[in-house]
C-alpha cells in the first residue's frame, strides 16, 4: 500500500530559523516554536500568522497545546516556560525553571500540558519529570517529582491522552512510564540504545511510538494488564529513515503515524502493516510533525503539519480526500 500526501499549504512568513516543535490545535490553527525564539500561531486555511509572541532571548525547544486548543505551553533552551492564551493572546504564566534560588529547581527541557488541565510536566537533566502548576496564579510551582532513578537527560515527555500516565524519553534511549495517581514508575523500556527525541501516544492510550537517533521508530504496547503488569513492550520496529528520527505523531484514528527525520524526509507509516506508506522529501531536518487532531473524513488518511530546518510550516493532506 502506498499513500500520497500533498503539500496543501505553506506558511506565508517563515521563521527566521529552524522550527523545533509544532502542534495542530483543535481550532484548526497550527502553533510553531522556533530556534529564533519566536512562537507563532497560524491559520490553517490561509497559512498566515494569526498571533505571535515577540522573540524570547533564546531558542524555544518544546511546545504543548491543550486539547481544546485554547492554551499553548512552550519552553526555551534555558528552561523558561510560558503559558500562552491563544484566544486572548496573553501570557498566563511564566516560569524560569533554571532559577536555582528555588530549592531543588532544575531547568526544564521538554514540557507537556496535562490534558485535564491544572498542571504541566517538564523533563530535566537528571532523569526526573517535574510536575508544575499550570494555574496562572501559582504557575510554575513544583508539585511533584517523578524520578526515573537514572541520571539521564529527558529528551521528551508526554501525558497520555487521558492524563493518567506520563511517558519520558531519555538521551540514552530508555523510555519510562509513570502512573500519575500513585506517582510511581510503572514501566521501563530499553528498546533503544540511542537518544529518543520524540514520543507519541495513541488516542486510546494503548500504544506508544518512540523515535530515536538509532534511525528507528519502535511501537510499544503499553497497556497495563489486569494484574497491573506492564504491556508486552516493543511490538514493531519501523525502519527506513537513514538518519536520526527527530519527531513522531500517531494519527487520531490510530492507523497511521508520521515521522520527521534528520535524513530530510517525512515518512508516513501504516501501523498495522508496519511499513512506510509515504515518503516526502524535505529540504532540511524535519524537527517537528503533528497530525490534525480532528478525525478525518471517512476514506481520507487525514492531514498533518510539519516544521523543520528552513523555518517553514507546511500543511500536508492525503491525496484523494477533498480539501
Amino acid at each position, binding site marked *: 500500500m502506498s499513500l500520497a500526501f500533498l503539500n496543501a499549504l505553506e506558511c506565508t512568513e517563515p521563521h527566521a530559523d529552524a522550527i523545533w516543535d509544532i502542534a495542530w490545535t483543535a481550532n484548526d490553527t497550527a502553533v510553531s516554536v522556533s*530556534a529564533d525564539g519566536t512562537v507563532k500561531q497560524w491559520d490553517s486555511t490561509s497559512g498566515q500568522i494569526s498571533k505571535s509572541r515577540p522573540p524570547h532571548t533564546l531558542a524555544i525547544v518544546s511546545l504543548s497545546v491543550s486539547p481544546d486548543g485554547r492554551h499553548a505551553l512552550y519552553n526555551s*533552551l534555558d528552561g523558561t516556560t510560558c503559558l500562552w492564551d491563544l484566544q486572548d493572546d496573553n501570557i498566563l504564566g511564566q516560569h524560569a525553571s533554571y532559577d536555582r534560588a528555588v530549592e531543588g529547581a532544575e531547568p526544564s527541557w521538554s514540557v507537556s500540558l496535562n490534558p485535564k488541565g491544572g498542571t504541566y510536566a517538564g523533563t530535566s537533566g537528571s532523569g526526573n519529570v517535574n510536575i508544575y502548576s499550570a494555574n496562572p496564579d501559582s504557575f510554575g510551582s513544583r508539585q511533584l517529582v517523578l524520578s526515573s532513578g537514572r541520571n539521564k*537527560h529527558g529528551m521528551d515527555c508526554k501525558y497520555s491522552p487521558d492524563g493518567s500516565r506520563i511517558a519520558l524519553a531519555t538521551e540514552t534511549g530508555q523510555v519510562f512510564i509513570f502512573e500519575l495517581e500513585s506517582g510511581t514508575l510503572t514501566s521501563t523500556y530499553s528498546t533503544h540504545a*540511542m537518544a529518543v527525541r520524540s514520543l507519541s501516544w495513541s488516542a486510546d492510550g494503548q500504544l506508544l511510538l518512540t523515535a530515536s537517533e538509532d534511525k528507528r521508530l519502535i511501537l510499544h504496547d503499553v497497556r497495563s494488564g489486569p494484574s497491573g503488569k506492564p504491556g508486552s513492550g516493543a511490538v514493531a520496529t519501523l525502519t527506513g529513515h537513514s538518519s536520526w528520527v527527530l519527531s513522531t505523531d500517531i494519527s487520531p484514528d490510530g492507523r497511521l503515524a508520521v515521522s520527521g527525520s534528520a535524513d530530510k524526509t517525512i515518512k508516513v507509516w501504516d501501523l498495522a502493516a508496519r511499513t512506510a506508506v509515504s515518503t516526502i522529501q524535505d529540504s532540511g531536518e524535519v524537527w517537528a510533525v503533528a497530525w490534525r487532531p480532528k478525525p478525518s473524513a471517512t476514506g481520507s488518511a487525514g492531514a498533518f503539519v510539519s516544521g523543520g530546518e528552513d523555518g517553514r510550516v507546511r500543511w500536508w493532506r492525503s491525496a484523494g480526500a477533498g480539501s
Partner: protein
Amino acid sequence: MEDAATSSGGRSIDIELGGQEVITIDLDNLDPNPEDVLDLLKEGQCRVSVWTRLAGEYWRRGYLAAAERIAQAAIESLQANGATASSPPIYALLANIQIALAQKAPKVVLGDAREDKLAGERTKEEYYKEAAQYLNSGERAAAEGGEGVGGTLAFLTRGIQQLATRSMDDALRSFEGVLAVKPTNLVALLGKARILYARRSYPQALKLFQNVLQLNPSCLPDPRIGIGLCLWAMDHKAKAKAAWQRSLEVNPSQWPAQLLLGLESINASKAENQPEAIRAQSFLAGTKFIEKAFNANQKSAAAANALCELFLRKGSYKRALKLAERTIQFADTLTLLTEGYLRAARVLHAEGSLAQATKYYTLATEGQPKHVMGAIGLAQMQMQNDEMAAAIHTLDTLIQPPNPQRSVEATVMLASLRAHPRPGVSSSDVTQEKAKARELFDRASKTLELEDTRATNGHTGRAVAHHINEDMDMHAEIARLWQDESLERTSRALKEALRISEASERVDPRLLNNLGALQHMEGNLEQARVMYEGALTKAAGLGSEVGEGMSTSILYNLARVYEDSGDTVMAKEAYDKLVARHPEYVDAKIRQAQMLANLNQSNEAHELLKQALASQNSNLNLRAFYTYFLIQSNLPKPAKDFVFATLKDHDKYDVYSLCAAGWIMYHQSRESRDSSSKGMEERKRGFQRSAEFYDKALQLDPLCAVAAQGLAIVTAEDALGTLSGSVPPSSAADEAQRRLKNARDALDVFAKIRESLSDGSVYVNMGHCYYARDEFDRAIESYETASLRFYDGHNVSVLLCLCRSWYAKANKEQSFAGMRTSLKYAEMALHIQPNDKAVMYNIAMIQQKAAELLFGINPTKRSLKDLEWAISQAGHAQRLFGSLAADQSPLVPYSREIADQRRKYGESMLRRGDEHLATQKQVEAEAQAKLDAARRKRQEEKERLQALEHERMEELRKQAEKLAEERRIAREQALEWTREVQMESDEERERKSKRAPKKVKVEGESGDEGAEPKKKRRGKLKKANDQADENGQLFSDEEADSKPAKKRGVKKRVVRDDDDQEAAGGPRKKHFKSKEILSDTDDEEMS
C-alpha cells in the same frame, strides 16, 4: 648425331656394328632392361652421341637407373677405346642424373623418425657430391683431350648443380655465361629466372619465364609454374591462378601446378567474406589438388607439408607425422624445414609426446627465431614444463626488436605470463611485471581494435583477432591487472568480459560480483545491488561446492550494499544467514557487530567480536576492527593492550595497528592530567612514542593518510615541544611565533591529506590550525565544510568549534552580528546535546560579551535596536550565570566561582546599560534630526528648482505662441499679396496654398528620410564599381559612415582598386573589409 639417321616414321636410332651391320633401336619402344642395348653399344663401339642419346632417352622414360648404367658403360667403353676425350658429355649426363636423383633424395635422414623411416637412403648431399665429381671428371677428360674446358653443356650442368646446392651467385654466373653464347638457351633462362625469383626480383623473373614460354610453349619444367609464382608474389593472385590452371591443362601429370592450385584453394577457403558453402568447396578442391600433387611426387617436401596440414586438421596424427617427417627430410629451404618441424611438433604436441614436441619446436625456433607459431609452440611447451621464465624469454625474443613480430596471440600470451606471479620473484619485480603486462595488453587490444575497425570497414578481419577479443578470461585478467591502478580500466575490462560472457549465455557470477563491487565502491549502490543479486542467482544455479563458495562471498557483498543503502533489516538478515551457514565467517560477524554498535548495543557487539576473535585470533582485519570498536566504545586501556598485543604477537608491521597505537598514545598523553614531574616525563614519552608509531606507519606505507594526519596533529600542537613541556616556556612572542609556524606546517600536510582522505576530521583539523593562526574566516570555512559535508550539522563538537570561531571573529572585528551567529551555533549544539552544561555556560558568556562589545563601540556604529536586544540578552545571561553558579550537581564542566564572578561582572557592566541607552537614543535622535534637516533641505532645493524649470517652460511656451502668431500674420499677408497679384479662382488658390506648405514640410523633415538617398547611393556604388568617378563616391560613402579612422584606408583602397579594377566583380563589400584590416598592418609599411 650425324650418323644416327632418324627414320622419318617412328623415332629410332641406328647402331652400326662393325661397319656392316646396322641395328635400329626403336626409341619409342625401349626395353626397360638396358642389358641388351648395352651389349650392343659396347660391341658397336659407338660414338658418344649415341650413348648419350640412348641414355637420355632412358632417362626421359624415367628409367633413371638404366640411363645411369648406360652412361657408366659409355665411360668404360670410351676409356677402353681410348676415346676419353669425347667423354665429357657423358660425365655431364652422369652429373645431371645425380642431380635428378638428389631431387628425390632426402635432405637429411632423421635417425629417430617414427613414421617416415628413410634409414639407408642416400641424402641429397651425397648425390650432389657425386655430381660434382662427375663434373670434375668431365672437365678433366676434356682437358686431357685438349678440347678445353667449357662448352654450353658443361656450363649448364655446372649451373644446375650450383643452383641445386644453393650457390646462387655461382649458378647465375654459369647461366649468364651460357646465355652470353646462346641467348635462347631454355635451361639457362629457366635457371636464371629461378635465381631471380629466389632473390625476389619477381618482375625480372616473370619476364624470363614468359620468354621461355614464348620460345617453347611445351617446355618442361613448365615455365607457367614460375610465371604463376611471380604473379602471386606480385599480388596478382587471380592471374597466378590462371597460369597454374593453364599449366595443369597442358601437363596434367605435373604435380607443382596441382600443389600450388591446392594451396590457393585452401587459402581461399579461409576468406571470411565468402559464404560457408563456397569456402567448404574451395577447401575440398584444395585438398584434392594437394593429394594428387603428393601422389604425383611423394618426395616433394612442399606437397608433403601441405598434405600434412590437412591430416593434422583431420586429426590423423600418424599420417600427419609421417608427412611432417617427410617434409623435414626432404625440405631444401629453411622455411619449409621450419614448417616441417612445426608440424611435427604440433602432431606430437597434440599426441602428448611433449619431450619430442619440445625438441621440434626448439629446432624450428633455432632455425627461425622470429617464427610466430614456433615461438608460441615452444612457449607452450615451456609453460607445460613449468619453465615460465623460459616461456617469457621465448615470446619476448619474438616480439622484441630486432625485427619484432606483430603477433597479437604472442603478445596476449606474454602479457598473461607476465601478469601471473611466479615463485621467487620479488614484489617490486611483480609490480614491474604487472606494468609490463598491462602495457602488452594495451598494445594487443589496440591491434585488435584496429582489426576490428578494419573488419567493420568491409575488410576481412582476421578470425584470430576476433577469437582473441572474445576471450573472456583475457578481459578478466586485464581487469585484475588494473584493479590496483585504475578502477575505470578494471570496470571497462570487466564489462567487456561480461558482454562476452552474456553472449555465451553462461554468465560467470564472479564477473557480476566484481562489477557489482566496482559499482559499490563508486557509490552506485542500486546498480551494485542489482549486479550482486544477479550474481547470486547465477551462482545458485551452479549448485556444486564452487557455487556455494561463490554465493557466500556474493551474499556478503550484497549484505554490505544493503547496509550501505540503509536497509538494515535486509542486511541483518543476510549476515544472519551467512553466519548460520558458516559460523566462523568473521567478516559477516564483524558487520553484525558494527550494526549492533551503530544502535549503541555495545555489549552484544562486543560478545560477537569476542566470538570472532576466538575463532580467528590472528586475523588482522578482525583485530583492526576490534581495536576500532574498543576505541569507539571509549575503552582506551583495553584498546591499548590489544593493539600492542597485535603488534607484538601478530604483525609488527601492521600499518593499521601502528596508526591506532599512535593515536592511543597521543590521546593518553594529551588527556593526562598528572602534573607531577614523573607524570610530565611520562607524558612527553607518550608523545614521542606516538610520533614514532606514526612515523613507522608512514615508512611502511608512504601514502597512509591517517598516519600523516597523526603526525600533522603532533606538529600542529607542538606535542614534542610545548605541549609535552619539554621546552621551557619562553617569551610569549616566541611562543606565538612558533604556534603560527607549526600551524602553517601542519596545514600544508592537511591540505595534502585532504586529497586522499575524504573525512570530516581533516577539515576539522584544518579549522583548528587556522584558528590557531587567528585566521578565523578560514577556520569557519573549514569547520563549515566538515559540519555540512560530513556530519550533516549533527556533530556537536564541530558546532562548538564554529561557535568558538565566530566568537573570536566577532571579538576581533567588533561585530555584533558575529556574536549572534556564535550564539546561534551554541544553541544548535545545545539542542542536539541538551545535557551539556558547558554549552549553557557558553551561551551566557556570549550573551554577556555581546553587550560588552556593543558598549565598547562608537554609538554611530551601533543601533538602538541592537543595543536594547543586547542588554536584554545580557540581563538574561545574569540569570543563567546565577543558575549555573548555584547548580548543585556533583560535577559541572565549568567553574561555579567563575560563573558567579561573571555574574557580578555583568552586574556592574549592565549598570551602565541605561547610560548607554540614553547616549544611543540621543545620538540617534541627533542623527535623525540631522537626517531630517538634510532631507528638508534637499526637498526645498528640489522645489526651488522645479519652480525655476516651470518658469522657463512657461517662457518658452509664450515665445512659441508669439512666433506662431507672427507666422500666421505673415502668411495672411502673403495670401493677401497673391490674391492681389493673381486673378485665379478662390478655390484654386486655396488648393495651391495648401499643397505648398506640405511639400516644404516633407523636405524639412530631414533626419531619417534624408539618410535614405545616401543609402541608395551606397547601394549603387557596390554594384557600379567600375565607374569613372568611383573615387569621389568612395569618399562620400566613407564620410557618410563618418569614421575618420578609416580614411587612411580609403586612399589605399583607391589605389588598389585601380590596380585590380578588372578583377573587381561582385563581392565589393568583402573586398573593402579585407583592405581595412590590411591597412592597419602591412600596407602601411608597404606604402
